[in-house]
């Protein structure tokens, strides 16, 4: 019975890690890659570590594993947000079929100043740089 629980948790976790790996290869865009890998890999690693805790059946090991899981769950979203934010400011292009970029034209990337939604007078024109095939076609 214990073996079956371990195997089930381990299989699910490994499957999610594999899905994250396929996602980082197949996704067309940095932001989509961040989105896929953060969620799937966090869940997968958490499940694998849970299986390990179930195998050892020991309080000290379980506490250590819970600390690792808690740490990963806390830091993975923060790290993903940080790298996504930095990449947006640096100017990493979005996928050309991305639906919406709500900050486009409203954010001064140098001074980090945001102009509000009603404030249509001071809209900053979008910068035209980056790869030509990654440009949004209709903007």
């Amino acid at each position, binding site marked *: 019975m214990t*073996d079956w629980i*371990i*195997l089930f948790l*381990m*299989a699910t*976790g*490994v*499957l999610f*890690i*594999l899905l*994250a*790996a*396929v996602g*980082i*290869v197949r996704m067309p865009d*940095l932001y989509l*890659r*961040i989105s896929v*890998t953060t969620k799937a*890999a*966090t869940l*997968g*690693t958490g499940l*694998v*570590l849970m*299986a*390990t805790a179930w*195998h*050892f059946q*020991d309080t*000290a*090991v379980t506490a*250590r*594993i819970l*600390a*690792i899981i808690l*740490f*990963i769950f806390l*830091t*993975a979203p*923060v*790290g*993903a947000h*940080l*790298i996504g*934010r*930095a*990449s947006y*400011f*640096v*100017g*990493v292009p979005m996928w050309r079929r991305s639906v919406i970029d709500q900050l486009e034209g409203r954010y001064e990337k140098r001074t980090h100043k945001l102009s509000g939604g009603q404030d249509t007078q001071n809209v900053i024109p979008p910068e035209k740089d980056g790869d030509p095939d990654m440009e949004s076609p209709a903007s």
Partner: protein
Amino acid sequence: MMKDDLLYYVFLPVLAVATLLIAWRFFKGPRLSDRVVALDLLITTGIGIIAVYSILADRPTFLDIAMILALIAFLTTVAFSYYLEKREGDD
């Protein structure tokens, strides 16, 4: 024992394939940010591999290394994003 066989012949190879896929993205890029994300994911997969190996070897001591790796992954992501925003241009 069936569990060890499954761990050794199924789960570890699947994790190895996942590592290879992520390493392909790590070397291909195309931007520095992609490499940073791939590095983060490589370390997370490494934690999984360490967990599976600690079951196989029956040694919970290896999990300390997993904890250190989790710390280092967060540190590298924070440092890279900090300096990425500082410097001019991106490639």
